[in-house]
């Protein structure tokens, strides 16, 4: 029987990569990536991020930091997008964007403070408009829409960049944000770091969608995939999306394919749900080794330069760790301040009572 059918819409999802896992270019590189200095600074950002990550885990293991989410193996996503952003764009991170935050001007000490359990870690001295880390998954996606709305209302050529994980794409707020961003053609770029896991849930069980990039189709704008372990591809894709958004052409979604080499956090034990061999295989995709290989082959990166880079990053991380460990906690009043611009009378009473309670506790041994 003939069926009454006409095709009314069709869509495609593209994938981008420049460097193969061994660091060999598969295609001619984008302009920025032919400049040795540009690549070296990307490389240093990757190395610094990994050094910070290792130190954070070491501090946690020795009881000097709280639960911490490692970004081991995913550094290129954060570094690529952080490098592509303009200073006055606004970053809305999830939790594994250490590399991007550092490039944005967030101090290593600030991130140590935050994961060390001190609210001042979110009071960035630079990157004043960037959002703090967002623990409730995907709940920052609507914030990015609001930030982009502010840019649109003020006719500013700025873009909000929201980063989330593969698991976040299952949440309603993620989708609502995409839909409004599309409906209002807002300058916002959604970067989905697909590290293949949401704690113990593999990407394959998170959604039946063949790609996470196609989540954007439901919201009426384009999405694409990129090799998230190829920092050149990430930076290039994010840069394109940013220019597109700056020109008023609306939002874009980038799915960066990578792999979470670490446990979900220091509180997690991934061996309960995935076997180490399969994880080990992903080291072949290591974004740092990949860029180093390319630098060596194409730009004569030397052993001395490598060692100097490692050393300076290690030193920078050590300095930050010491500064963090030397930072005294906030005064007790900090429990009450910062909630309202000016302390309401009702809360002032509690603030006083609390001070009294502490004084009492100090006097007695009951505490």
């Amino acid at each position: 029987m003939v069926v009454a059918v006409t095709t009314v819409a069709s869509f495609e999802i593209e994938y981008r990569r420049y460097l193969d896992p061994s660091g060999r270019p598969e295609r001619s590189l984008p302009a920025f990536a032919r400049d040795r200095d540009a690549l070296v600074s990307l490389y240093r950002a990757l190395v610094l991020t990994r050094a910070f990550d290792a130190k954070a885990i070491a501090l946690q293991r020795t009881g000097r930091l709280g639960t911490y989410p490692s970004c081991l193996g995913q550094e290129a996503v954060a570094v690529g997008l952080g490098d592509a952003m303009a200073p006055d764009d606004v970053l809305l991170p999830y939790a594994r964007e250490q590399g991007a935050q550092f490039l944005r001007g967030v101090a290593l000490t600030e991130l140590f403070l935050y994961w060390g359990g001190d609210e001042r870690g979110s009071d960035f001295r630079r990157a004043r408009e960037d959002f703090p880390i967002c623990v409730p998954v995907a709940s920052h996606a609507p914030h990015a829409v609001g930030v982009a709305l502010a840019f649109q209302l003020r006719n500013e050529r700025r873009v909000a960049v929201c980063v989330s994980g593969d698991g976040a794409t299952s949440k309603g707020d993620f989708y609502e944000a995409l839909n409004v961003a599309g409906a209002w053609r807002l300058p916002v770029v959604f970067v989905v770091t697909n590290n293949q896991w949401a704690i113990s849930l593999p990407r394959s069980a998170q959604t039946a969608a063949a790609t996470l990039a196609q989540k954007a189709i439901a919201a009426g704008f384009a999405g694409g995939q990129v090799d998230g372990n190829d920092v050149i591809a990430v930076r290039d894709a994010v840069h394109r999306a940013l220019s597109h958004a700056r020109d008023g052409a609306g939002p874009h979604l980038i799915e960066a394919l990578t792999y979470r080499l670490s446990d979900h956090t220091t509180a997690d034990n991934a061996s309960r749900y995935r076997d180490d061999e399969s994880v080990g295989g992903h080291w072949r995709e290591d974004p740092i080794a990949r860029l180093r290989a390319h630098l060596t082959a194409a730009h004569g990166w030397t052993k001395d330069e490598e060692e100097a880079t490692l050393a300076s990053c290690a030193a920078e991380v050590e300095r930050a760790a010491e500064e963090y460990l030397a930072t005294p906690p906030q005064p007790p009043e900090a429990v009450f301040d910062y909630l309202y611009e000016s302390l309401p009378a009702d809360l002032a009473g509690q603030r006083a009572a609390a001070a009294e309670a502490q004084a009492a506790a100090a006097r007695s041994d009951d505490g």
Partner: protein
Amino acid sequence: MVQALNAALARAMAEDERVLVLGEDVGIDGGVFRVTDGLLDRFGAGRVRDTPLAETAIAGLSVGVAAQGFRPVAEIQFMGFIHSAVDQLVCHASRLRWRTRGRLTCPLVVRAPYGGGIHAIEHHSESTEAMFAHVPGLRVVIPSSPARAYGLLLAAIRDPDPVLFLEPKRIYRALKEEVPDNGAAAPLDSCFQLRDGDDLTLVAWGAMLVETLAAAERLAAEGVTADVLDVATLSPLDMGTILRSVEKTGRCVIVHEAPLTAGFGAEIAARLVEHGLLSLRAPVKRVTGYDTVPPLPRLEHLYMPSTARVLAAARETLAYS
């Protein structure tokens, strides 16, 4: 009250271009209750925005645009649909200043018509103000007259922190009164004393002031005079005024439309017994909705606290000694 709210919004938008109005049907339709009527024509589609049907996004994008220095006034079409916005209000709006030690702030107002008594369809009669009064960092404000609606909404919009502004829809059009559009804000930290008396303190907010004032009238006719307090700003709460009144009267009845258990009346009664026990000459009674779902229109009248129930409680309290 609708006109007063509309005037306050227009005033706020005219005097501060950072003020935005957004929500479902707030534009050309002027809001399903017409609270935003005319704002689109006057201030344009940039500042008066119809949103897609998505309460989480409405609240969440408001947090984002507020962090950028705008002053969004977001409408949730009915309080029964505010639940999808709770996550954004609890985890973000109320905490952004706290989380960033004051670096980013959230000068946001979320408006929502609330309460029953208008023979509405399902999920259109809820009063869940107590759930929000429990959220640190979030102000909860409820007007009970056109004049207070005007002054409190202006104050809420000018306040640098997030405010949940609940509008008792049953009296949207009931009470008519001339409200001078003078830009004068009402205080966000004090009860309003609507009647003066010596024998009894009646505490209420929102539409329940109708039954409460009617009961006070009735009692006055019988020679019993009551303080009638409109709490207005549930959070932060002005307990001082209530304590002073009960110190004088020794007797208190609290009236609210929401279910009894864990309703906001409990907080007021608890503070009375904690800080005013000596002045209490009778048990503090609560006249409230029952711990049930608001019934559909045919039985709704059995649920709503009536003047008769307020009077009965008042008389019991007065009889006590």
